[in-house]
Protein backbone atom coordinates (compact mmCIF):
# COMPACT_ATOMS: atom_id res chain seq x y z
CA UNK A 1 0.00 0.00 0.00
CA UNK A 2 2.66 2.47 0.97
CA UNK A 3 4.76 1.78 -2.09
CA UNK A 4 1.86 2.61 -4.37
CA UNK A 5 1.24 5.83 -2.51
CA UNK A 6 4.76 6.97 -3.20
CA UNK A 7 4.41 6.50 -6.93
CA UNK A 8 1.33 8.70 -6.97
CA UNK A 9 3.69 11.65 -6.88
CA UNK A 10 5.17 10.85 -10.26
CA UNK A 11 3.86 12.70 -13.26
CA UNK A 12 1.10 11.00 -15.23
CA UNK A 13 3.54 10.23 -17.95
CA UNK A 14 5.99 8.64 -15.59
CA UNK A 15 3.30 6.65 -13.86
CA UNK A 16 2.16 5.20 -17.18
CA UNK A 17 5.72 4.33 -18.08
CA UNK A 18 6.41 2.80 -14.71
CA UNK A 19 3.30 0.72 -14.83
CA UNK A 20 4.47 -0.72 -18.11
CA UNK A 21 8.12 -1.06 -17.31
CA UNK A 22 9.60 -0.40 -13.90
CA UNK A 23 7.16 -2.22 -11.67
CA UNK A 24 7.19 -5.46 -13.65
CA UNK A 25 10.95 -5.18 -13.79
CA UNK A 26 11.09 -4.70 -10.06
CA UNK A 27 8.99 -7.78 -9.50
CA UNK A 28 11.18 -9.71 -11.90
CA UNK A 29 14.35 -8.64 -10.16
CA UNK A 30 12.98 -9.70 -6.80
CA UNK A 31 12.57 -13.26 -8.00
CA UNK A 32 15.38 -13.77 -10.48
CA UNK A 33 18.95 -12.89 -11.34
CA UNK A 34 19.85 -9.39 -12.57
CA UNK A 35 19.01 -8.82 -16.21
CA UNK A 36 22.38 -7.74 -17.44
CA UNK A 37 24.09 -11.03 -16.77
CA UNK A 38 26.60 -10.47 -19.56
CA UNK A 39 28.14 -7.76 -17.40
CA UNK A 40 28.49 -9.96 -14.35
CA UNK A 41 31.98 -9.59 -13.11
CA UNK A 42 34.21 -10.47 -10.22
CA UNK A 43 36.07 -7.39 -9.15
CA UNK A 44 38.51 -6.27 -6.58
CA UNK A 45 36.77 -4.58 -3.70
CA UNK A 46 39.02 -1.63 -3.27
CA UNK A 47 36.19 0.73 -2.41
CA UNK A 48 36.17 0.83 1.35
CA UNK A 49 35.50 -1.96 3.76
CA UNK A 50 33.22 -4.12 1.63
CA UNK A 51 35.15 -7.35 1.15
CA UNK A 52 32.36 -9.23 -0.57
CA UNK A 53 33.76 -10.79 -3.74
CA UNK A 54 30.63 -12.52 -4.98
CA UNK A 55 29.79 -11.98 -8.64
CA UNK A 56 27.44 -9.12 -9.30
CA UNK A 57 26.17 -6.91 -12.09
CA UNK A 58 27.90 -3.53 -12.24
CA UNK A 59 25.04 -2.16 -14.29
CA UNK A 60 22.34 -3.13 -11.81
CA UNK A 61 21.61 -0.74 -8.93
CA UNK A 62 18.40 -2.44 -7.90
CA UNK A 63 17.91 -2.73 -4.19
CA UNK A 64 17.60 -1.03 -0.84
CA UNK A 65 20.50 1.20 0.10
CA UNK A 66 21.48 3.10 3.22
CA UNK A 67 24.38 5.29 4.25
CA UNK A 68 24.09 4.04 7.80
CA UNK A 69 23.75 0.25 7.72
CA UNK A 70 23.97 -0.05 11.51
CA UNK A 71 20.22 0.04 12.25
CA UNK A 72 19.78 -2.83 9.81
CA UNK A 73 22.43 -4.90 11.57
CA UNK A 74 24.69 -4.85 8.54
CA UNK A 75 28.49 -4.43 8.55
CA UNK A 76 29.69 -0.89 9.17
CA UNK A 77 30.41 1.28 6.15
CA UNK A 78 32.91 3.97 7.21
CA UNK A 79 33.22 5.30 3.69
CA UNK A 80 29.45 5.87 3.61
CA UNK A 81 29.54 8.58 6.25
CA UNK A 82 30.24 12.23 5.66
CA UNK A 83 33.68 13.18 6.84
CA UNK A 84 34.29 16.43 8.63
CA UNK A 85 32.77 18.33 11.49
CA UNK A 86 29.27 18.62 10.01
CA UNK A 87 26.96 16.25 8.15
CA UNK A 88 24.00 16.40 5.75
CA UNK A 89 25.94 18.24 3.08
CA UNK A 90 26.83 18.29 -0.58
CA UNK A 91 30.38 19.16 0.52
CA UNK A 92 33.47 19.12 -1.66
CA UNK A 93 35.50 22.24 -2.42
CA UNK A 94 33.06 25.13 -2.27
CA UNK A 95 33.52 27.43 -5.30
CA UNK A 96 33.26 31.22 -5.08
CA UNK A 97 29.74 32.52 -5.52
CA UNK A 98 28.67 35.04 -8.11
CA UNK A 99 27.14 38.30 -6.79
CA UNK A 100 23.69 36.85 -7.46
CA UNK A 101 24.66 33.60 -5.78
CA UNK A 102 25.95 35.45 -2.75
CA UNK A 103 22.73 37.43 -2.51
CA UNK A 104 20.64 34.26 -2.47
CA UNK A 105 23.07 32.57 -0.09
CA UNK A 106 22.68 35.38 2.43
CA UNK A 107 18.91 35.10 2.31
CA UNK A 108 18.95 31.46 3.37
CA UNK A 109 18.96 30.71 7.09
CA UNK A 110 19.85 27.06 7.81
CA UNK A 111 19.55 25.19 11.10
CA UNK A 112 22.41 22.79 10.43
CA UNK A 113 26.02 23.45 11.25
CA UNK A 114 27.53 25.48 14.05
CA UNK A 115 26.11 28.63 15.55
CA UNK A 116 28.08 31.79 14.85
CA UNK A 117 30.44 32.53 17.68
CA UNK A 118 30.05 29.10 19.24
CA UNK A 119 33.04 27.17 20.48
CA UNK A 120 32.70 24.74 17.58
CA UNK A 121 32.45 27.52 15.03
CA UNK A 122 35.62 29.06 16.42
CA UNK A 123 37.40 25.71 16.43
CA UNK A 124 36.50 25.19 12.79
CA UNK A 125 37.08 28.71 11.54
CA UNK A 126 38.74 27.27 8.44
CA UNK A 127 35.57 25.67 7.07
CA UNK A 128 33.19 27.50 4.78
CA UNK A 129 30.97 30.08 6.45
CA UNK A 130 27.92 28.07 5.38
CA UNK A 131 28.76 25.51 8.03
CA UNK A 132 29.11 28.17 10.73
CA UNK A 133 25.89 30.16 10.51
CA UNK A 134 23.20 27.94 12.06
CA UNK A 135 19.93 29.50 13.21
CA UNK A 136 17.44 28.24 15.72
CA UNK A 137 14.84 26.17 13.91
CA UNK A 138 12.11 28.66 14.71
CA UNK A 139 14.05 31.44 13.02
CA UNK A 140 15.14 29.42 10.01
CA UNK A 141 13.69 29.48 6.49
CA UNK A 142 15.05 26.03 5.69
CA UNK A 143 12.49 24.40 3.36
CA UNK A 144 12.80 21.19 5.37
CA UNK A 145 11.49 22.95 8.46
CA UNK A 146 8.31 23.75 6.58
CA UNK A 147 7.83 20.42 4.81
CA UNK A 148 8.76 21.98 1.49
CA UNK A 149 10.37 19.62 -1.03
CA UNK A 150 14.03 19.00 -0.32
CA UNK A 151 15.10 18.91 -3.96
CA UNK A 152 17.29 16.41 -5.75
CA UNK A 153 20.78 17.09 -4.44
CA UNK A 154 19.56 17.28 -0.90
CA UNK A 155 17.72 14.00 -1.19
CA UNK A 156 20.92 12.40 -2.40
CA UNK A 157 23.17 14.06 0.14
CA UNK A 158 21.00 13.38 3.16
CA UNK A 159 22.82 10.73 5.10
CA UNK A 160 23.36 11.71 8.67
CA UNK A 161 20.40 9.80 9.97
CA UNK A 162 19.15 6.42 8.93
CA UNK A 163 17.20 7.48 5.87
CA UNK A 164 17.38 4.79 3.23
CA UNK A 165 16.63 4.77 -0.46
CA UNK A 166 15.42 2.20 -2.96
CA UNK A 167 16.34 1.85 -6.60
CA UNK A 168 14.05 0.15 -9.07
CA UNK A 169 15.59 -0.33 -12.48
CA UNK A 170 14.92 -1.70 -15.91
CA UNK A 171 16.45 -0.93 -19.30
CA UNK A 172 14.42 2.23 -19.86
CA UNK A 173 14.19 3.89 -16.49
CA UNK A 174 15.64 3.99 -13.02
CA UNK A 175 13.29 5.02 -10.23
CA UNK A 176 14.96 6.23 -7.06
CA UNK A 177 12.81 6.41 -3.94
CA UNK A 178 13.92 8.28 -0.84
CA UNK A 179 12.61 7.36 2.57
CA UNK A 180 12.89 10.77 4.25
CA UNK A 181 10.04 12.89 2.87
CA UNK A 182 8.93 9.83 0.82
CA UNK A 183 10.12 11.48 -2.37
CA UNK A 184 11.31 10.03 -5.64
CA UNK A 185 13.10 10.85 -8.87
CA UNK A 186 13.39 9.18 -12.23
CA UNK A 187 16.39 8.69 -14.52
CA UNK A 188 15.44 7.82 -18.08
CA UNK A 189 17.89 5.52 -19.82
CA UNK A 190 15.86 5.00 -23.00
CA UNK A 191 18.07 7.25 -25.09
CA UNK A 192 15.90 10.35 -24.98
CA UNK A 193 17.41 13.82 -25.08
CA UNK A 194 17.14 16.30 -22.26
CA UNK A 195 14.22 18.71 -22.54
CA UNK A 196 14.66 22.34 -23.43
CA UNK A 197 14.19 23.65 -19.93
CA UNK A 198 12.78 26.91 -21.19
CA UNK A 199 9.84 24.95 -22.58
CA UNK A 200 9.19 23.05 -19.36
CA UNK A 201 8.23 23.89 -15.88
CA UNK A 202 11.13 23.38 -13.52
CA UNK A 203 10.57 20.76 -10.89
CA UNK A 204 12.24 19.99 -7.62
CA UNK A 205 13.94 16.82 -8.81
CA UNK A 206 14.50 18.04 -12.34
CA UNK A 207 14.61 16.03 -15.56
CA UNK A 208 17.25 13.32 -15.72
CA UNK A 209 18.67 11.12 -18.46
CA UNK A 210 21.36 8.49 -18.06
CA UNK A 211 23.82 6.80 -20.39
CA UNK A 212 26.53 4.26 -19.77
CA UNK A 213 30.23 5.03 -20.11
CA UNK A 214 31.79 1.67 -19.43
CA UNK A 215 30.63 0.66 -15.99
CA UNK A 216 29.67 4.20 -15.03
CA UNK A 217 26.14 5.49 -15.47
CA UNK A 218 26.39 9.18 -16.29
CA UNK A 219 23.21 10.97 -15.28
CA UNK A 220 22.54 14.53 -16.41
CA UNK A 221 19.81 16.60 -14.82
CA UNK A 222 18.36 19.97 -15.84
CA UNK A 223 15.23 21.95 -15.02
CA UNK A 224 15.73 22.14 -11.25
CA UNK A 225 13.36 24.38 -9.30
CA UNK A 226 15.39 27.20 -7.78
CA UNK A 227 13.39 27.26 -4.55
CA UNK A 228 15.38 24.29 -3.32
CA UNK A 229 18.67 24.52 -1.50
CA UNK A 230 21.66 22.59 -2.70
CA UNK A 231 21.97 21.09 0.75
CA UNK A 232 21.10 21.70 4.38
CA UNK A 233 23.48 24.66 4.62
CA UNK A 234 21.56 26.99 2.35
CA UNK A 235 23.67 27.02 -0.80
CA UNK A 236 21.45 28.30 -3.63
CA UNK A 237 20.92 26.97 -7.12
CA UNK A 238 19.38 28.55 -10.21
CA UNK A 239 17.03 27.06 -12.76
CA UNK A 240 19.90 27.05 -15.25
CA UNK A 241 21.86 24.60 -13.12
CA UNK A 242 23.02 21.30 -14.56
CA UNK A 243 23.87 18.36 -12.36
CA UNK A 244 26.04 15.49 -13.53
CA UNK A 245 26.01 12.33 -11.45
CA UNK A 246 28.37 9.43 -12.05
CA UNK A 247 26.91 6.25 -10.59
CA UNK A 248 29.13 3.22 -10.03
CA UNK A 249 28.84 -0.01 -8.11
CA UNK A 250 32.46 -0.62 -7.09
CA UNK A 251 31.63 -3.76 -5.12
CA UNK A 252 28.54 -5.92 -4.58
CA UNK A 253 27.43 -4.02 -1.51
CA UNK A 254 28.38 -0.48 -2.42
CA UNK A 255 26.84 2.21 -4.60
CA UNK A 256 28.75 5.42 -5.21
CA UNK A 257 27.51 8.68 -6.70
CA UNK A 258 29.89 11.49 -7.65
CA UNK A 259 28.06 14.74 -8.36
CA UNK A 260 29.17 17.88 -10.17
CA UNK A 261 26.98 20.98 -10.22
CA UNK A 262 27.48 23.51 -12.98
CA UNK A 263 25.55 26.68 -12.25
CA UNK A 264 27.26 29.80 -13.63
CA UNK A 265 24.47 32.01 -12.33
CA UNK A 266 25.34 31.06 -8.74
CA UNK A 267 28.95 29.79 -8.80
CA UNK A 268 32.04 30.84 -10.70
CA UNK A 269 33.11 27.29 -11.51
CA UNK A 270 31.70 23.75 -11.43
CA UNK A 271 31.34 22.24 -7.97
CA UNK A 272 32.23 18.61 -7.27
CA UNK A 273 30.54 17.09 -4.25
CA UNK A 274 32.26 14.75 -1.87
CA UNK A 275 31.53 11.14 -2.92
CA UNK A 276 28.26 9.73 -1.61
CA UNK A 277 28.44 6.01 -0.87
CA UNK A 278 25.66 3.63 0.17
CA UNK A 279 25.64 0.12 1.55
CA UNK A 280 23.30 -2.49 0.13
CA UNK A 281 20.73 -3.61 2.68
CA UNK A 282 19.13 -7.04 2.21
CA UNK A 283 15.38 -6.79 1.96
CA UNK A 284 14.92 -9.03 4.96
CA UNK A 285 17.10 -6.75 7.07
CA UNK A 286 14.96 -3.70 6.32
CA UNK A 287 11.80 -5.00 7.86
CA UNK A 288 9.29 -3.97 10.51
CA UNK A 289 6.70 -6.47 11.74
CA UNK A 290 7.41 -8.69 8.77
CA UNK A 291 6.93 -5.92 6.20
CA UNK A 292 10.14 -5.17 4.35
CA UNK A 293 11.08 -2.06 2.42
CA UNK A 294 11.28 1.66 3.04
CA UNK A 295 9.29 3.34 5.76
CA UNK A 296 6.81 5.99 4.65
CA UNK A 297 8.71 8.75 6.37
CA UNK A 298 6.72 11.70 5.10
CA UNK A 299 7.01 15.26 6.26
CA UNK A 300 3.40 15.84 7.31
CA UNK A 301 2.57 19.57 7.49
CA UNK A 302 0.14 19.29 10.41
CA UNK A 303 2.60 17.21 12.43
CA UNK A 304 5.36 19.62 11.59
CA UNK A 305 3.24 22.60 12.61
CA UNK A 306 2.83 21.12 16.07
CA UNK A 307 6.51 20.27 16.22
CA UNK A 308 7.41 23.79 15.16
CA UNK A 309 5.21 25.27 17.84
CA UNK A 310 7.52 23.63 20.36
CA UNK A 311 10.54 24.89 18.46
CA UNK A 312 9.05 28.39 18.52
CA UNK A 313 8.71 28.25 22.27
CA UNK A 314 12.22 26.85 22.64
CA UNK A 315 13.51 29.85 20.72
CA UNK A 316 11.41 32.25 22.76
CA UNK A 317 9.38 33.27 19.73
CA UNK A 318 6.11 32.76 21.55
CA UNK A 319 5.23 33.25 25.18
CA UNK A 320 6.21 30.20 27.17
CA UNK A 321 4.08 28.69 29.90
CA UNK A 322 6.54 29.75 32.54
CA UNK A 323 4.70 31.55 35.30
Amino acid at each position, binding site marked *: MTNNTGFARFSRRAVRALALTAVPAFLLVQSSAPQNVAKVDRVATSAGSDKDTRPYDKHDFTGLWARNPG*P*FKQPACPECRDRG*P*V*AYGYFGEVPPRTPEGEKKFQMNRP*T*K*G*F*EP*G*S*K*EALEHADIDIAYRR*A*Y*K*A*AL*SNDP*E*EHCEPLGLMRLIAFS*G*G*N*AAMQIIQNKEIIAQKF*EWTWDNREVWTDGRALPNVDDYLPRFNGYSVGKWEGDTLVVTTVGLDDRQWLDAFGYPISEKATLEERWTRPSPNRLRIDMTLTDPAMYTKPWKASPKVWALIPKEAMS*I*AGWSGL*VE*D*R*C*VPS*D*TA*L*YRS*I*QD*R*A*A*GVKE*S*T*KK
Partner: protein
Amino acid sequence: MRSHLTKSFGLVAGLLLISASVWAHHGTATSYDTEHVWTTWATVVEFRYLNPHPSLRFERTDKNGKVEQWESEAGDNPSQLARAGWTKSRSMEALKPGTRVKLYLSTARAGGYVAVVEKFENEKGESILGERRDYPNAVDMDGVPGGYQPKPQDSK
Protein backbone atom coordinates in the same frame (compact mmCIF):
# COMPACT_ATOMS: atom_id res chain seq x y z
CA MET B 1 25.40 24.41 43.44
CA ARG B 2 26.20 26.43 40.39
CA SER B 3 29.90 25.57 40.39
CA HIS B 4 29.06 21.91 40.90
CA LEU B 5 26.75 21.99 37.93
CA THR B 6 29.25 23.78 35.76
CA LYS B 7 31.97 21.27 36.59
CA SER B 8 29.78 18.23 35.97
CA PHE B 9 28.32 19.54 32.78
CA GLY B 10 31.69 20.65 31.45
CA LEU B 11 32.94 17.08 31.37
CA VAL B 12 30.40 16.00 28.82
CA ALA B 13 29.76 19.24 27.02
CA GLY B 14 32.16 18.67 24.15
CA LEU B 15 30.91 15.21 23.31
CA LEU B 16 27.30 16.24 23.60
CA LEU B 17 27.74 19.17 21.31
CA ILE B 18 29.55 17.14 18.73
CA SER B 19 26.95 14.40 18.70
CA ALA B 20 24.06 16.82 18.66
CA SER B 21 25.42 19.06 15.95
CA VAL B 22 26.41 16.19 13.71
CA TRP B 23 23.40 13.96 14.00
CA ALA B 24 20.45 16.04 15.13
CA HIS B 25 17.74 16.30 12.52
CA HIS B 26 16.55 19.76 13.26
CA GLY B 27 19.21 21.82 14.88
CA THR B 28 18.65 20.52 18.41
CA ALA B 29 21.81 22.07 19.79
CA THR B 30 20.85 25.49 18.50
CA SER B 31 17.46 25.42 20.23
CA TYR B 32 18.26 23.53 23.44
CA ASP B 33 21.00 23.71 26.02
CA THR B 34 22.39 20.25 25.34
CA GLU B 35 25.46 21.04 27.42
CA HIS B 36 23.41 20.82 30.60
CA VAL B 37 21.46 17.58 30.76
CA TRP B 38 19.44 17.12 33.94
CA THR B 39 17.00 14.54 35.26
CA THR B 40 13.60 14.66 36.85
CA TRP B 41 10.68 12.39 37.57
CA ALA B 42 7.60 13.35 35.62
CA THR B 43 4.07 12.25 34.82
CA VAL B 44 2.98 11.86 31.22
CA VAL B 45 0.12 14.16 30.19
CA GLU B 46 0.15 13.40 26.46
CA PHE B 47 2.60 11.63 24.16
CA ARG B 48 2.27 12.20 20.41
CA TYR B 49 3.99 9.89 17.94
CA LEU B 50 4.66 12.45 15.22
CA ASN B 51 7.03 13.23 12.38
CA PRO B 52 9.70 14.46 12.31
CA HIS B 53 9.93 13.82 16.06
CA PRO B 54 7.41 12.80 18.73
CA SER B 55 6.39 15.25 21.41
CA LEU B 56 5.59 14.84 25.09
CA ARG B 57 3.59 17.01 27.45
CA PHE B 58 4.42 16.18 31.03
CA GLU B 59 3.99 17.43 34.57
CA ARG B 60 6.58 17.60 37.30
CA THR B 61 6.04 18.66 40.89
CA ASP B 62 8.60 20.78 42.65
CA LYS B 63 9.58 20.41 46.30
CA ASN B 64 7.04 23.09 47.26
CA GLY B 65 4.21 21.09 45.73
CA LYS B 66 3.83 23.32 42.71
CA VAL B 67 2.98 21.45 39.52
CA GLU B 68 4.82 22.55 36.39
CA GLN B 69 3.44 21.87 32.90
CA TRP B 70 6.19 21.14 30.36
CA GLU B 71 6.25 20.66 26.62
CA SER B 72 9.03 18.72 24.92
CA GLU B 73 10.44 17.19 21.79
CA ALA B 74 10.69 13.54 22.56
CA GLY B 75 12.57 10.82 20.86
CA ASP B 76 13.84 9.81 17.48
CA ASN B 77 12.08 10.05 14.17
CA PRO B 78 9.22 7.47 14.07
CA SER B 79 10.87 5.46 11.30
CA GLN B 80 13.93 5.03 13.48
CA LEU B 81 11.80 4.22 16.50
CA ALA B 82 9.79 1.62 14.64
CA ARG B 83 12.92 -0.04 13.30
CA ALA B 84 14.25 -0.21 16.84
CA GLY B 85 11.08 -2.02 17.89
CA TRP B 86 9.30 1.04 19.28
CA THR B 87 6.25 0.95 17.08
CA LYS B 88 3.47 3.45 17.59
CA SER B 89 1.31 1.13 19.68
CA ARG B 90 4.19 0.04 21.92
CA SER B 91 5.38 3.61 22.40
CA MET B 92 1.90 4.94 23.18
CA GLU B 93 1.39 2.16 25.72
CA ALA B 94 4.74 2.85 27.39
CA LEU B 95 3.92 6.55 27.65
CA LYS B 96 0.18 6.59 28.23
CA PRO B 97 -1.23 9.47 30.29
CA GLY B 98 -0.48 9.14 33.98
CA THR B 99 2.70 7.09 33.51
CA ARG B 100 5.59 7.99 35.77
CA VAL B 101 8.88 8.35 33.91
CA LYS B 102 12.36 9.58 34.62
CA LEU B 103 13.41 12.08 31.98
CA TYR B 104 16.84 13.27 30.93
CA LEU B 105 16.25 16.78 29.64
CA SER B 106 17.94 19.67 27.89
CA THR B 107 16.05 22.90 28.54
CA ALA B 108 15.25 25.33 25.72
CA ARG B 109 17.91 28.00 25.40
CA ALA B 110 15.16 30.59 25.73
CA GLY B 111 14.31 29.09 29.11
CA GLY B 112 10.86 28.29 30.43
CA TYR B 113 9.16 24.93 30.60
CA VAL B 114 10.24 23.66 27.21
CA ALA B 115 12.84 20.97 26.67
CA VAL B 116 14.05 18.12 24.52
CA VAL B 117 14.00 14.67 26.09
CA GLU B 118 17.40 13.08 25.65
CA LYS B 119 16.43 9.80 27.31
CA PHE B 120 13.46 8.11 28.99
CA GLU B 121 13.41 5.56 31.80
CA ASN B 122 10.43 3.79 33.32
CA GLU B 123 9.93 3.13 37.02
CA LYS B 124 11.91 -0.09 36.70
CA GLY B 125 14.91 1.88 35.48
CA GLU B 126 14.58 0.50 31.96
CA SER B 127 15.32 2.68 28.96
CA ILE B 128 12.20 3.15 26.87
CA LEU B 129 11.62 4.56 23.40
CA GLY B 130 14.87 3.04 22.21
CA GLU B 131 18.34 2.69 23.58
CA ARG B 132 19.92 6.07 24.07
CA ARG B 133 23.38 7.01 25.10
CA ASP B 134 24.19 7.24 28.79
CA TYR B 135 24.37 10.57 30.55
CA PRO B 136 26.53 9.71 33.57
CA ASN B 137 27.02 13.36 34.44
CA ALA B 138 23.39 14.38 34.16
CA VAL B 139 22.42 16.27 37.31
CA ASP B 140 19.47 15.09 39.37
CA MET B 141 17.15 18.08 39.74
CA ASP B 142 14.01 16.27 40.77
CA GLY B 143 11.90 18.68 42.79
CA VAL B 144 14.01 21.73 41.97
CA PRO B 145 11.66 24.50 40.81
CA GLY B 146 12.04 25.04 37.07
CA GLY B 147 14.66 22.31 36.77
CA TYR B 148 17.74 23.61 35.03
CA GLN B 149 17.23 27.01 33.43
CA PRO B 150 19.96 28.21 31.03
CA LYS B 151 21.98 31.15 32.21
CA PRO B 152 22.64 34.14 29.95
CA GLN B 153 26.06 32.81 28.95
CA ASP B 154 24.43 29.54 27.85
CA SER B 155 22.06 31.27 25.44
CA LYS B 156 23.97 31.56 22.22
